[in-house]
């Protein structure tokens, strides 16, 4: 037929697709098709993800604590309005993200240090930070860089916006139903030209069998989330190919280091060390992911961090069952059952890995009871000794800022949420503050290593494996996956 249509069957959709309030693994997938960022990581030309290219911003330069962003001219929103500096300033404003009662409070995390955002001309915006911040362009390639239209946003309110969002992206939302489908349509007035397909649908099909069968019958062009064990079935299937990509996100287990519940044995660091040493994480990852992802033996030493990455680094706490047993003996642990809260089915293979880990811990004399709970609320409900989470790593591209400081700092979610599992040590805060301010690359790396060392001394958790995303794609269609949960289905990335 004349209209080209692309149907993507996904295992989950999120009920809200506002760029900050609606952040979730399922909505991130759709964002870049609806919104454009000011700055974007160019994965097409530099798969390492170190290169930033202009998108809605055409230029950016820093003068001390002030960044001046120049905007692209003639960019249209889906509702026909033209994008102005006002819109961009509002997008990054205190009113929306970082003031006292912002529309999207989580924006604060991503705008730490902002003191002023102002439209200084029809197409220029100034951002002033408390300290010098070299990473503003990188941060603008994240969620806060998705530009929203001020007038429409204020008119609908955050909730309404999350249901019927308007962006400048290549596709326009026709109908969004978080528990059914997201139906998009090519945006003819897109500044970069119309996208490759006229209709783009993300369809919610929770059962894998349904997605697979739909791919076979041609109902779906792309299906997401193939169980890792089933990948070779796709590989041998006619008319479809498998696309697999490691994603800048690591699954983790948090050890609750606080005295809550009372007498929590995990307050003893020997026990925490023992727990790390009792797990043959390489074997687990190998078994569950057939070598398609890996386990970073040294926390925060992640390959996507370029200069920060040291391939030869040695782990402090390698797999060693005997050592683990010795540590258990040394600790005050008396065989209490440790409760591990896990949100069921949220991360690929997490549940399976947990079942394996529980058995491995048992070998070392540690009793862990994994409780698989239906949603985060139940998982976050105290008491628990351990908590399943995952964390992104690319808030500042090529810099370990997010996992090490954004998440673990005193204002970070792990130290401040109702379910907080640790209180940062003084030393950690001290080094961290210096690291966050540091603009000199060498100094920054030294501080990073020191900070990581302090973290490892405490060992308030364990990063497990790098997340994987996979898709099966019908022959005749291909797209370039990026190491994020997002699916860029616009020009350059999607080929028909």
């Amino acid at each position, binding site marked *: 037929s004349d209209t080209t249509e692309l149907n993507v069957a996904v295992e989950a959709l999120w009920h809200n697709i506002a760029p900050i309030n609606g952040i979730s693994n399922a909505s991130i997938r759709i964002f870049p098709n609806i919104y454009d960022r000011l700055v974007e990581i160019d994965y097409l030309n530099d798969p390492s993800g170190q290169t930033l290219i202009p998108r809605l911003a055409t230029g950016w330069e820093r003068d001390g604590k002030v960044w001046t962003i120049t905007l692209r001219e003639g960019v249209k929103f889906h509702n026909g309005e033209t994008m102005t500096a006002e819109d961009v300033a509002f997008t990054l404003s205190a009113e929306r993200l970082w003031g006292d009662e912002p529309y999207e409070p989580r924006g604060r995390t991503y705008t730490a240090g902002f003191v002023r955002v102002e439209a200084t001309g029809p197409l220029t915006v100034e951002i002033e930070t408390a300290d010098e911040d070299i990473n503003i362009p990188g941060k603008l390639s994240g969620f806060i860089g998705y530009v929203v239209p001020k007038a429409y946003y204020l008119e609908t309110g955050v909730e309404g916006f999350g249901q019927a969002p308007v962006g400048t992206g290549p596709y326009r939302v026709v109908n969004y139903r978080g528990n059914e489908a997201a139906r998009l349509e090519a945006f003819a007035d897109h500044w970069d030209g119309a996208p490759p397909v006229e209709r783009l649908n993300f369809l919610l099909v929770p059962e*894998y069998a349904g997605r697979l069968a739909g791919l076979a019958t041609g109902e779906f062009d792309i299906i997401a989330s193939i169980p890792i*064990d089933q990948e070779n*079935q796709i590989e041998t299937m006619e008319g479809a190919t498998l696309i697999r990509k490691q994603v800048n996100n690591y699954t983790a287990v948090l050890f609750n280091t606080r005295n809550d519940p009372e007498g929590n044995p995990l307050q003893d660091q020997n026990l925490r060390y023992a727990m790390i040493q009792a797990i043959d994480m390489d074997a687990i990852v190998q*078994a569950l992911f057939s070598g398609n992802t890996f386990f970073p033996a040294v926390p925060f030493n992640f390959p996507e961090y370029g200069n920060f990455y040291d391939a030869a680094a040695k782990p402090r706490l390698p797999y060693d069952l005997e050592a683990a047993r010795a540590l258990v003996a040394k600790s005050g642990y008396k065989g209490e059952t440790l409760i591990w809260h896990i949100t069921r089915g949220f991360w690929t293979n997490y549940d399976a890995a947990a079942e*394996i880990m*529980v058995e491995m811990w048992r070998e070392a004399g540690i009793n862990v009871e*994994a409780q*698989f*709970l*239906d949603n985060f609320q139940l998982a976050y409900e105290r008491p628990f000794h351990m908590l399943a989470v995952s964390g992104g790593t690319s808030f500042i591209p090529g810099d370990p800022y997010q996992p090490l400081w954004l998440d673990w700092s005193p204002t970070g979610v792990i130290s401040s949420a109702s379910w907080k599992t640790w209180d940062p040590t003084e030393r950690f805060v001290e080094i961290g503050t210096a690291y966050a301010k540091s603009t000199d690359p060498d100094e920054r790396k030294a501080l990073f290593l020191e900070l990581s060392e302090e973290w490892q001394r405490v060992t308030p958790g364990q990063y497990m494996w790098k997340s994987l995303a996979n898709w099966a794609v019908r022959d005749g269609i291909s797209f370039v996956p990026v190491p994020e949960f997002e699916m860029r289905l616009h020009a350059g990335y999607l080929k028909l």
Partner: protein
Amino acid sequence: MRHIPTIAWLSIATLLCALLFALFGGWLSDHAATQQNLLARMRPPLLFGGDFEFPLGTDRLGRDLLARMAEGLRISLLIALLGSVLGALFGCTLGFVAAHFRGWVEETIMMVVDIQASLPFILIALTLLAFFGNSFGLLIFLMAMFGWDSYARLSRGVVLSAKSQPWAEAVRTLGVPPVALYLRHVLPNVAGILIVQLTLNFPQIILLESALSFLGLGIQPPMTSLGQIMGDGRDYLSTSWWISVLPGLTIFLVSLAMCVLGDWLRDRLDPALQRVRQ
């Protein structure tokens, strides 16, 4: 009692086998139900390329399906048994109470029965499990709640008719107090009918539990049930079918046997039922 048709024999045999397997099936395997073997993941069963180490194959964590099925069957049967027996006790007590007191007590009880019957039970179970979190106790409670209404309705009916039987009136005129009348006379006489209801309720509980497991709300690991094993393996149906199909088949066979047995019992007891009704 004397002429038991083949089909009833077959169901009894199936149920016995299931019971034996649940109780002693674990002995057939060298592995514990939770023991994982990451090098032997998704091994096919015997006859489909598997070997004697894992006669029924393994699941995605390399756990022995034979051991798991025995464990799962045990738990499923336990849940069904506890659920149906508790449900029967609860329902029958209320039914007896309603039939004894009549009047507003009866009206109230029967209204609660109506309310329960007017809500598809899976809605209640789903909501409660999701909102209160999953625990074995809650699950058993729910399974007992499932079907109590039919016991209540049934027992009220048969007790009412049994009560109006001349022999019950005769016993009353002898000065036997009501509780003794119910326990010594009425209960034994209506037990058959309630047992039939039990055989019908039993497979329904197994099925309900498995449906909840399918939605991720049934028995939680490391405990396991047939429904859970089956739900666990459903993503692998097109490659490692045995993980899902074997427990599915077991659920099916046990339910089938129970249904057939129940039907047969009911047919046998029906004349008795009708006599009671008159």
